[in-house]
């Protein structure tokens, strides 16, 4: 725990007690070190606690993914129990390589990539609409031997990046409508529109939340949020209540309110995944059934290696295990935000916070879905859920946070 206190009481030198002083000192420190390197930021070591948390979560995630996918792989892939884990492990190694590479890369160069990446994300979101529908939605681009890829992953990153880029450049004008609201509303609106075209409600919600958090931190006046939330709330209510083409969403809300309803066969089918998830979580109890001992993963819980992996975690490791994993995520977020806050400039600060908030939101929303706290929607659990490309992207993003940490004014171990 002394380590944690170290994170809250930062800065080895210049022991000012006031936060402003710390930030000021950190910025100055950043300016000083910036001149000493160009592309690769190897001068200072990366933040080992953050790296440690990433590695621990990744390893636990892989073990649990193996356990959860084991039965499904066995039955659905001709007895090959290693079908999912072998692919995921390869992507994990690849992701780690990417992460370390990115951590050596000076994140300031992302300023130059912000607009191109945004445009690429738009292009991919348009392209994906022309891919074959899976379960009636167009979310996946098939990459052949590299598996499948969700453009919404890139879209999330592109929003974080372009917001960090624009806010850091216009930081002092964020109070105005023209510089503080309009460009962001346009960019976010465009992304949201493309995502709803797939349709992909959960990604839209996450991106909207990330955007809102970044604008909030960036200093947009609170009244804009009041207005935006009113419009957003009205929109959601309209979709749920009236729009026919989003009927699947309103079905899910019915299923959410009563996951054990046997009213109609359709409803039973809709609530199947949720109720199997609740059975799994409940079966775990305090201490769990033991690693590998889940019963619900034996085809009761559909695709347990994906969005509902946390239910299997709860079943096998119990409340204690689930709580430990949630605490690890909380520590990762805490440390990530600390690193970002102490970054030497606003771009690093916003970029880091945006990426960490994205991970935090995904964890919260995923666990909320699995525990039926919110309606069922497709949100994966970072480090745990099966998906090669999204794991590589996630680790690359962690690489950016590590890159920020290299110049961040925090105590390195």
């Amino acid at each position: 725990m002394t380590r944690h206190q170290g994170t809250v009481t930062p800065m080895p030198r210049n022991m000012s007690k006031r936060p402003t002083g710390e930030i000021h000192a950190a910025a100055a420190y950043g300016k000083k070190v910036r001149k000493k390197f160009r592309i690769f930021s190897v001068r200072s070591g990366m933040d080992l606690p953050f790296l440690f948390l990433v590695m621990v979560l990744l390893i636990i995630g892989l073990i649990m993914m193996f356990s959860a996918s084991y039965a499904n792989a066995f039955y659905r892939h001709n007895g090959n129990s290693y079908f999912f884990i072998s692919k995921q492990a390869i992507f994990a190694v690849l992701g780690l390589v990417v992460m370390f590479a990115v951590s050596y890369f000076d994140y300031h160069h992302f300023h130059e990539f912000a607009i191109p990446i945004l445009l690429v994300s738009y292009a991919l979101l348009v392209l994906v609409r022309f891919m074959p529908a899976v379960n009636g939605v167009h979310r996946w681009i098939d990459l052949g031997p590299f598996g499948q890829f969700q453009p919404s992953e890139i879209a999330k990153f592109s929003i974080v990046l372009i917001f960090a880029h624009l806010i850091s450049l216009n930081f002092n004008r964020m109070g105005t409508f023209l510089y503080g609201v309009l460009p962001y509303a346009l960019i976010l609106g465009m992304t949201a529109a493309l995502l709803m075209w797939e349709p992909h409600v959960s990604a839209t919600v996450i991106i909207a939340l990330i955007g809102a958090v970044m604008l909030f931190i960036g200093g947009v006046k609170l009244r804009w949020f009041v207005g935006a939330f009113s419009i957003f709330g009205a929109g959601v209510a309209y979709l749920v209540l009236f729009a026919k083409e989003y009927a699947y969403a309103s079905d899910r809300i019915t299923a959410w309110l009563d996951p054990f309803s046997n009213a109609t066969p359709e409803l039973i089918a809709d609530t199947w995944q949720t109720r199997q998830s609740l059975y799994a979580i409940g079966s775990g109890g305090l201490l769990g059934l033991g690693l590998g001992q889940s019963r619900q993963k034996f085809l009761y819980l559909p695709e347990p290696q994906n969005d509902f992996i946390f239910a299997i975690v709860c079943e096998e490791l119990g409340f204690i295990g689930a709580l430990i994993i949630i605490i690890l995520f909380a520590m990762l977020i805490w440390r990530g935000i600390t690193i970002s806050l102490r970054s030497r400039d606003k771009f690093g600060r916003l970029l880091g916070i945006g990426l960490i908030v994205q991970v935090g939101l995904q964890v919260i929303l995923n666990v909320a879905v699995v525990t039926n706290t919110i309606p069922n929607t497709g949100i994966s659990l970072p480090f745990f859920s099966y998906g090669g490309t999204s794991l590589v992207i996630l680790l690359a993003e962690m690489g950016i946070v590590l890159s920020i940490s290299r110049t961040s004014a925090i105590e390195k171990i």
Partner: protein
Amino acid sequence: MSKGTNIRMWHRTVFVLLMMIVAGFGAVVFNLVRLQIVEGETLKMRAVDNQVKDTVLTAQRGTIYDQNLKILAQSATVWQVVLEPAYITDKNRDVIAAGLSEILGLDKETILKHSKKKTYYDVIKRKVESSVKDQIVAFKDKNDITNGIRLIEDYKRYYPYGTLASTILGFTGTDSQGLSGIEAEYDSELTGVSGKLVTAKNAIGTDMQYDYEQEVPAQDGHSLVLTIDEVVQHILEKNLAEGLADNNVQNRGCAIIMNVKTGAIIAMAVKGDFDPNDPFTIADKTQADAIAKMTDGAEKTQAIQKAQQAQWRNKCVSDTYQPGSVFKMITGASAMEENLVSENTQFSCPGYLKVGDRIIHDWRRSGFGSLTFAQGICKSSNVVFMKVGQLLGPDLFFKYFDAFGFTSKTGIDLPGESRSLYYTASQLKPVELATSAFGQSFTITPIQMVTACAAVANGGYLVHPHVVDRILDSVGNIVKTAETSPKRQVISEDTSKRISAILQQDATSGTASSGYIPGYRIAGKTGTSEKQEIKTSKEYIASYCGFAPADDPRIAMLVFYDEPHGSSYYGSQVAGPVFLKTMSEVLPYLGVEPVYTEEEMAKLDAQTPSVTGMTVAQAKNKIFQNGLTSQFYGSGEKVVSQVPEPGKSIPKGGQVVLFTDEQSASKTVAVPDLVGLTLAQANERASAVGINLSITGAALSGTANTISKLQDVPAGTKVSPGTVVTVSFIETSHVE
């Protein structure tokens, strides 16, 4: 970059961090506590339930056997075909739909529609035979389909004998639950116990790779061995159905054969019944056609439901009726037990009796003059029994009514047993007592009647009627056997013997003589009762209840026809011949040896000797010595074949036809119509074409007014000359 904005950024970031940690993580941890700690046990139970239910490893339903372990109902493995739409891709959707529609005979468009549902589990066909399942497996292999089609093990109920004993057996529903008959009554025994621990099976019903210690496998259901004998049941159903058609019976008929000593039901039939393999189809053709012609709507649905309910209803236990004269055996036995009457007690019978201010007539208005008690039974005089009822008085009458089991259900192990309706001792006013004494003004079930009849026969013991002899577990150990000890003794053995003798006399020469079979010592009583609930038209119930052999009773039997619309509605003419025919076929099967009186012997059949291979003269002589006549066909020296074959019984004086060459052996004659004739007329017609008659029924009792009622070989059948045709006779003068 001002200090203010920096501080604001810091504050807002800390706010976001705290919101995520406190509100976000706090909420999910709160929910985890709720789900895992607070509701954990409940959810765990439901999960186990869910895993039990979804393994689809239902225990195999037990088999139902007859007394000789012939299989009457059995479960066989079938399969449920389930689509997993979520795993069907656009690439293989069409292949799957085309393949399944071909194998399962379903519409391809329907399957395509199912395959697009947003579910993981969608049943498209149930109860698919294993051969079809193999086809699907082969189809999956051929097209390399690993996901998207699931096959789940299930069971289907088969009834190999079709309609046989359907009323007793009942049938099962789509989830193999018993819905009527034995299947419903013994549902919990037959069903077995589903596996308590599901972990042995995954959601598609195949074995999990894990070995869980807590596994309790499903226990297959228990099997039942019935007291029913398939052969006797078959004989009874055949004869009951014939009688139903012959007498144009409107409201079905039923019959029961019971072991008088144990209460075991050897056969129990209701016609028209249904095929338990297809219980919802209306089995009665005319009714089914009438319903098919109706236009769709509530009325049609109602008609179908009514017809279904009717064909499933077990008249033997669910219908109540006024037993009529059959009940006189009970009144008579009670009075004899109380020493109020004996065989020779004299009664005067003027044809009516004034009871209170009412005059109640006998069935023969002219009366019988002076009768002994025994004669009163044989002539079925109502006046005699009204007087016997008066001798008993309400208290004693009700005491025996109750003791013979008419006030409570018999407790037979079949569903839907009805309650009887009757006057209690204090409600039995003179008129009610008088009519009750000859079996009117109360209603009972057929099973109650036959049980009481068994008590009259077996020495006075009221037995527990039952259809399940023993329950076996899945490896064949006996779990439970039926209660065969009697409930109580109602009358003494002596009274039982004496009343049996009178009833035997009745069956030999009285109103019940249409049930007479020489040598088998049958005792019985007929009954014809008016259905009082029908006010618009007069409808009757014709019944016959009796037992055999009278000196050492083995079986009791009741035949019951509801609303006969044929030439007669009398018990003696409608139910009697069926009773007779059934007894004559069942008793030899049960190994009851005939014992003939001298009078019977004189009229009895002679055995045909074997004369094949003898010369014509030798054969003629041998046949004459046996009290028979001979008839020759052909031009050969020696007899090459004979009809009837050696050792067959034909009436004395009957004709043995002998063939002396092969060509003539193929000669045939047509059997004439032998129904509705006197004994002499029948003999004349038979000898005219050269066939032999075997006579059963009333003709043998020596009275004159008998006519033939049934023949065992239908008129017009081509047979060899000399063939024996059995004709049964009934006495027309004795009707009630």
